[in-house]
């Protein structure tokens, strides 16, 4: 005796699942970039003296140099950075200047909020 179990529509179901998964991945990527945008705002606020750290604005070059990748070229990664030469000196301090920690403190302070943004983005 042979029992054959045949389920119809498997290719269609697979296509639907794949499409749904693809949409979820797009949502996740967008959510991560949204979180990066949020962190960018927090770092800029910190540099401007609106958070606990010392204000680091003289000409505004440092504050205006903080960027995040908005072109979605890197999947599932959002980088908040400054590429000006003295950014490391302000962030980590030097032998003559105390560290300002705008980036690290902003990331530590907002870790829960960043996770929340990502969770909301993929609901």
């Amino acid at each position, binding site marked *: 005796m042979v029992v054959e179990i045949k389920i119809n529509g498997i290719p269609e179901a697979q296509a639907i699942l794949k499409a749904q998964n693809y949409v979820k991945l797009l949502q996740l990527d967008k959510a991560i970039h949204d979180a990066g945008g949020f962190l960018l705002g927090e770092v800029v606020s910190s540099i401007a003296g609106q958070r606990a750290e010392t204000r680091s604005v003289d000409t505004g070059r440092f504050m205006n140099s903080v960027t995040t990748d908005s072109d979605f070229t890197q999947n599932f990664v959002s980088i908040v950075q400054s590429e000006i030469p003295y950014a*490391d*000196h302000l962030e*980590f*301090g*030097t*032998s003559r200047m*105390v560290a300002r920690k705008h980036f*690290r403190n902003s990331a*530590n302070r907002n870790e829960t909020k960043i996770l929340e943004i990502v969770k909301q983005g993929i609901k």
Partner: protein
Amino acid sequence: MVSLISGNSVISKSTLFVRDILRANISDPLSRSGSGTAFVYSSYPRENIIYPIITVVDNGIRDIRRMGMQSESTLMQLPFEVRVWARNVVERDSLSDNVYSFFKNNQFGTGSVSVNVGLHDFTCTSMTNVDEAGEEGIKSKVMGYKWIYINE
């Protein structure tokens, strides 16, 4: 010398513990007296600084997980910033090598300094060079190290 980290003093003692094991195990290139007290600090010294020096500061100690709903124990993350301040790049990198190798190679077994006191899961999270301009500029490397600690 801090030789033990307990749950009630994890915030105050863990930085001193890391400082003290570096004092005891990293060779001072200038062979200064004082068993490393003029070489490894838990904050940036205010005066009479003679380089090279190493500074150790904590960097956002926090709970990352409860150890059960009916438990007061927590899993803590202990991140530290160990910074080597040196007179030149060679000295900076050589001392940084010594620090990293010491932590990496003394986690378990004979000579263990971290797991024996409850510091688990050693990770180097970052290394960033911060060099001041000019020949006389201080060359430093900021190293992020992280351990997990179960606070019972």
